[in-house]
């Protein structure tokens, strides 16, 4: 009579703990994602840097910027900011077609940022803290520096390239590659980019006023603000902005290297400046 033999275990299945395979695969996937996003992010940013500025302006014009800004309600202030911006653009030797537009935002946010198409957004919250024109020029010079080195479009290019890669890998189709918020959210700049913009701001100060007094004040504003909010500065490793103190130190180093004067007369802000900024209180 026929008998079935006893089949040994472990031929069609493995006794190995599946967690082992899981962790190897997970680590491999994470490594793959990181490498792919680094490579794609880098090439996306590099390629975006090749986009002519005129095309960048066209991309920016897809968004209706005027609906967000309060420049029209404060024509004097907007005009003043624009005149400073034009002066700085000249000082930074911006190419002819690179037109910078300043937008005033009547909001408490302590911030200012540059975005694609040479658009600068400056919030009232930050302007309230600016003590003199030199510091304001540092702020605008920094943001215009970002535009000069094409940081907004590079950052956008990197974001789009990484988003496309992630959509492909994860297979999801619901993620927005270039959402409506793309223009108005602060684009993430790398620490290198911030440093480049800081340096550009210092060059601007020096060439406009012959000294760099007032420049470091800008970073002290941010430092104080962070202390007021009692939030610890994020450790440098995780932050894209160089630590405030590092930026202040870096200014001194730059001044010494280039033989710039760190002291000098500060130019006051125009008389109507405070008035315009405080106008929201009367409403």
């Amino acid at each position, binding site marked *: *009579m*026929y*008998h*079935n033999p*006893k*089949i040994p*275990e472990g031929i*069609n*299945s*493995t006794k*190995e703990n*599946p*967690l082992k*395979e*899981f962790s190897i*695969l*997970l680590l*491999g*996937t994470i490594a*793959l994602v990181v490498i792919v996003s680094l490579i794609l992010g880098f090439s996306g940013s590099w390629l975006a840097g090749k986009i002519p500025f005129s095309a960048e302006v066209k991309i920016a014009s897809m968004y209706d910027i005027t609906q967000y800004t309060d420049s029209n309600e404060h024509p004097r202030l907007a005009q003043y900011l624009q005149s400073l911006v034009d002066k700085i653009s000249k000082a930074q030797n911006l190419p002819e077609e690179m037109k910078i537009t300043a937008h005033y935002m009547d909001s408490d946010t302590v911030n200012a940022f540059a975005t694609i198409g040479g658009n600068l957004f400056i919030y009232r919250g930050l302007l309230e803290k600016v003590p003199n024109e030199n510091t304001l020029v540092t702020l605008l010079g920094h943001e215009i520096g970002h535009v000069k080195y094409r940081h907004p479009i590079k950052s956008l290019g990197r974001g789009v390239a990484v988003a496309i890669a992630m959509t492909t*890998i994860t297979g999801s189709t619901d993620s927005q590659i270039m959402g409506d918020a793309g223009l108005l959210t602060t684009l993430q700049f790398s620490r290198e980019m911030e440093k480049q913009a800081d340096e550009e701001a210092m060059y601007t100060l020096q060439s406009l006023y012959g000294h760099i007094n007032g420049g470091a004040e800008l970073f002290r504003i941010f430092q104080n603000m962070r202390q007021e909010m009692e939030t610890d500065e994020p450790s440098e490793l995780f932050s894209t902005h160089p630590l405030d103190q590092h930026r202040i130190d870096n200014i001194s180093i730059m001044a010494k290297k280039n033989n710039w004067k760190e002291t000098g007369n500060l130019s006051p802000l125009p008389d109507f400046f405070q008035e315009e900024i405080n106008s929201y209180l009367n409403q």
Partner: protein
Amino acid sequence: MEQLLITIVLVALGYFFGRRAENKHIKSIIEREAVMNQLPAMAGRFPPQNGKYHQQLVSGSVVIANDYFKTFVAGLRNLFGGKITAYETLLDRARREAVLRMKQEAQSLGAELIFNVKYETSNISGQYNKRMPVIEVHAYGTALMEYSTK
């Protein structure tokens, strides 16, 4: 972030419960196979032609669902290629369980032998590839019963 948390919880649940169920199932399969081994099942297509037996179709089927952990591992495996061991265990269990059920039916008929044993495996989770795989394994064969026992 929430999405990530949900996934982690699902994977952890899938791992703990899936693994517990699997180990229990394998243990039970091995025990029952030891008993059922006295009823031979074979793939041969030609039954003994001596007129001593009558024949009947016997079958056993099992539907087995995947857990989230296995699906997740298989998804990761899809990126790199290679054997999906998580599914191998699953299918092995399903086939053996199907044979055991078929043998149980044959045993209740008083069979002495099952020949021409075949398997059918089908995916019944539908056409949406995002759904977790659910498979059915169907084992069937011809049971031989001695006339005298009737």
